[in-house]
């Protein structure tokens, strides 16, 4: 039994980290902003944490983690002020651009060995560290839901102009959520760096933030824990598919990729509110039959 646990320990760890990342995207989604900068924020957090641990070994882990969360949060402010004025797809593109610039920065920075990245980072993250961080994030976002701030965010999501006329400080709220998302992504980055022993720019490409977005949406943004459900589902799925593929005798690789895409398509078309809306659907159907 312990062997089984050991075999999947890292899977649980990745579920937790991806959960944090999905929540970081959700933070901006819940006020209607599609920000795709989080791979960049994650990179900043990961490198900050790793550099502290490697160059200043006496610093306690919790301080390094705090720095991982703080650094991208600080950068989010000058990024957000000009960029949050843009609507919809333009904001998305601007933030994608930011993420790429961050990645290119690290690819070209010799201090961190460019593409080779930083290696031999002592493994200080444990499953309970990740669980704790995730619980904290869920608590914060959960409390937000029913609160005045939460209602303000919903108002902004529904109709930003109307919200502003009602007196809601839209820029401040949007910026706050961007900063929160950045902090969460940075924290996840710091945790991951200390779990996988290394950090390199290749792990923060455009595809990474796309994964985060997909997990948040597939899980469902109707509930604050939806993104975590999505992260769990989509992190475990490749492993399930790996077994299925092996059982069916298919070559690993293209089959899994295909199913990933197909499942994503199915969810977005037929289950638009994500997986968390499934129980509600069943209940409605059951009631309809009664």
């Amino acid at each position, binding site marked *: 039994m312990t062997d089984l646990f050991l075999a999947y320990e890292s899977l649980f760890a990745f579920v937790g980290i991806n959960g944090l990342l999905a929540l970081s995207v959700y933070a901006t989604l819940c006020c209607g902003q599609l920000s795709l900068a989080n791979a960049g924020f994650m990179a900043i957090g990961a490198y900050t944490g790793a550099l502290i641990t490697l160059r200043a070994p006496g610093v306690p882990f919790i301080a390094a983690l705090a720095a991982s969360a703080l650094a991208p949060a600080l950068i989010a402010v000058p990024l957000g002020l000009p960029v949050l004025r*843009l609507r919809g797809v*333009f904001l998305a593109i601007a933030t*994608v*651009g930011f993420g790429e*610039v961050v990645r290119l920065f690290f690819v070209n920075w010799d201090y961190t060995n460019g593409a080779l990245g930083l290696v031999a980072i002592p493994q200080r993250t444990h499953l309970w560290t990740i669980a704790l961080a995730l619980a904290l994030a869920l608590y914060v976002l959960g409390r937000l839901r029913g609160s005045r701030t939460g209602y303000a965010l919903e108002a902004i999501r529904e109709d930003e102009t109307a919200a502003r006329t009602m007196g809601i400080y839209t820029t401040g709220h949007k910026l706050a959520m961007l900063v929160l998302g950045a902090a969460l992504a940075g924290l996840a980055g710091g945790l991951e760096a200390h779990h996988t022993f290394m950090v390199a720019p290749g792990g923060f490409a455009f595809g990474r933030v796309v994964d985060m977005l997909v997990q948040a949406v597939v899980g469902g943004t109707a509930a604050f824990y939806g993104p975590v459900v999505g992260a769990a589902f989509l992190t475990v799925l490749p492993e399930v598919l790996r077994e299925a593929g092996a059982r069916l005798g298919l070559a690993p690789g293209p089959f899994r990729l*295909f199913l990933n*895409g197909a499942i994503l398509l199915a969810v977005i*078309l037929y289950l638009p509110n994500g997986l968390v809306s499934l129980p509600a659907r069943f209940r409605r159907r059951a009631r309809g039959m009664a």
Partner: protein
Amino acid sequence: MGQQALNGVFVGSIYALFAVGYTLVFGVLDILNLAHAAVFTLAAFIALALVDAHLPLWLALPLAVAAAGLIGIVLERLAFRPLRGRADSNISGLISSLAMATVFEAIALQIFGPDISRFPQGTFPDRMIRIGGASASLLQLCIVGTSVVLMAVLTLLLARTRLGRQIRAVAESPRAARILGVNVDRAIAMAFFLSSALGGAAGVLFGLAFNSISPDVGRSVELKGLAVIILGGMGSVPGAVVAGFALGLIEVFTVAHLGSSFRDAVSFAVLFLVLIARPRGLFGRAAAREA
């Protein structure tokens, strides 16, 4: 100097052709079609497969382009039409196009494998031409020429034909267009056909130009394409053309004077500057700001 300018025009023509399709769909549907790069890739592979099946090049290329257009229609039907009318169609459209892109990539990977595939030697005559002090291959010149012709055809189509007017009407306002009797579904499908055909043409030309086709070949153009359509203005075809060439030249001169490490960063710097200073780009009309 002249050589670099030629290099820039060459790479710019491919960026422009790719971006034109991108911006067309955005203008019409207000959605970013992330599967565009996958169609680019598939078209290159289809052209390769046709040439391997001993079809002459002049036949294989238009067939591949037409196939790409058809893929676009399938894409629209499967991934975009069911989402129309949904409140969050921006994001869900993005994601469903992403899903389709993944599916397309998996298909390409399964059929052609991960290795680089190439056109057989001698598919295109290998001749160098001197222009002033610079040299270009016959292939490069043909590619620039073809790109320009295709973009001109599209512009004419949009400006002069009935279909073009219908597409522009839908881009302006789908509801008004429907009231005026335009078959909105068909216009959108045709817009996708054109967009994907052009994206596919870009892929085929790219494949011929660099003779190095792999399932991830769309990735290098994908993000540049975003910079181009922002610079040119979302929804503006002439904008995409101008911006495509402009970006190609900017990139090349960055490499010449600053070094290639800055090349990609410059594209994104341009992207940011445009979004912050003049979000609607050079020729765009779409409202880009909230306030």
